[in-house]
């Protein structure tokens, strides 16, 4: 399946991916308005990790053996048969955080506004994830490997 991959050597650590993810998943879709009004209710599903001169953006890996699907007690975490993406059905999630416990990438978050798991949805409704599209240095690519 197509996944988002980070190219560590290209990442400048500018965190634009975090901002694009945040705005895209906001209600207003407008950067200033979203920042003002929705900062406490949305967290970006991508996070830039940085240590010394190494930095890269990390989001849900949509793992082949997805431990979060196996551990989900509510049947909320499942694989979209069409895209292969791991998606969380927020109407089913009960917020038990088993997915947080088993995600080896630390990429499933607790929702800020609702008690449900929150994670990268690969921007299913877009052609390509906005973190990839907006990366100024092509440090993120969306491809089959």
């Amino acid at each position, binding site marked *: 399946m197509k*996944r988002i*991959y*980070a190219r560590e050597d290209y990442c400048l650590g500018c965190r634009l991916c975090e901002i694009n993810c945040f705005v895209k998943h906001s209600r207003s879709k407008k950067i200033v308005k979203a920042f003002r009004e929705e900062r406490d209710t949305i967290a970006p599903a991508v*996070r830039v*990790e*940085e*240590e010394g001169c*190494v*930095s*890269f953006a*990390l989001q849900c*890996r*949509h*793992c*082949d*053996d997805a*431990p979060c699907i*196996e*551990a*989900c*007690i*509510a*049947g909320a975490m499942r694989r979209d048969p069409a895209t292969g993406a791991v998606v969380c059905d927020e109407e*089913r999630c*009960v*917020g*038990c*955080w*088993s*997915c*947080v*416990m*088993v*995600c*080896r*990438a*630390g990429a*499933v*978050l*607790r929702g800020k506004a609702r008690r449900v798991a929150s994670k990268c949805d690969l921007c299913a409704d877009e052609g390509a994830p906005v973190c990839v599209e907006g990366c100024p240095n092509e440090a993120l690519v969306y491809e089959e*490997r």
Partner: protein
Amino acid sequence: MSTKSDDMDERVKHLIIGNSTAAVGAVEGLRRVDREAPVTLLAREPHHTYSRPLISYLLAGEIDDARMHYRPADFYEANRVYARLGVEVERVDAESRVAITTAGMEIPFEKLLIATGGKPFVPPMEGADAVGVFTFTSWDDAKRMAAHIEEADAKRAVVIGGGLIGIKSAEALHARGLEVTMVELADRVLPLALDETASRLAAAAIAEAGVELVCGTTVDRIVAPEGRVEGVALKTGREIACDLVVVAIGVVPETGIVDGSAVETARGIIIDQRCETSVRGIYAAGDVAQGTDALTGESRPIPIFPNAYRQGSVAGANMAGGEATVNSSFAMNSVEVFGLPTISVGLATAEGEGHEVLTRIGEKARTYRRIVLRGSRVVGALSVGDIDRMGIFTGLIRHGIDVSSARELLLSDEFGLVSLPADYRKHVVRGEGIEV
């Protein structure tokens, strides 16, 4: 289907006894290897497969009946499983490879998975059979408890046991407006998952919710002179009036159907890394099974949801002719205690005996982390309050990663995949199945 048959042709190719997490894992694991082979599933309970841990959410009124079904309504049809619900197996004849139901029907099989789960342990206790005394592990338990609360207009409950089930039932009863007292024999709640510090934070959350917690004693007898619960008497002599009692002391493997058979049992049914029992072609998975704890080398049941699914899925794949192994089983629990999230993974409470313990009390109230190392590897991790990204530690424990280079950062806010060896980091990022 004929009721009796010795004819090989009439043998069920794959028989699954049980209908919970391990059975669902088995169906899904089996179907990944073989789309066609006939599968028959027998379940004692009449319900379409449902998620046991959700019963506390149901009793609390957080979810409705429809959400108990954690697989779609067409789960059996879509996976071509012949599900016979409400059929209880009495015993398995391992030699002639026949399952015998309580109604006397004989079902010959080629391959068998035993996924009968666990049963609540109720110690001999005066009044244990009174109206208003419940265990809490099944959907029917939740329904019966809800009905009793209505019918008896229950106002006060005593929960015996301060483990996972005790806390979850106390929470649900509290959410329904009952006054609740929890009684735990150990000196603290969740004694297996939490160390003293973490347990103290959990106790504070329980107290804040207005639930009474009594540790270091247990219920001596249930007071029920008319056959209905009126209260409990503790070993200390104290009596607590109540109209509902939950016995949540523990769960033991439901191994009864292989009693007297060649299938080897200890506390649970003993399985190898392929989830096969001592009898070829007979598998066991989930709370009924006893595999090897990867962190201690000890053979013991690890009755937790993700473990049940993984074992079931491995058993299913092997039944279908695949080659799967459970590489690394160990305890892990994510438990929210009256709003306070906790995650405990591996040997989270270990100390001494070559274990090095790192702890951090957070600046925010009620946050705590504890990392347990053995040499250069993480073998346990515990977090209260701030549980974000705890799965990174679960991955490190599962894959036995050398963390020498990240040692100084393990408790830091900055800790992340970036702190870890580049080859492991790249492994995780690739997102391909990792079975190191």
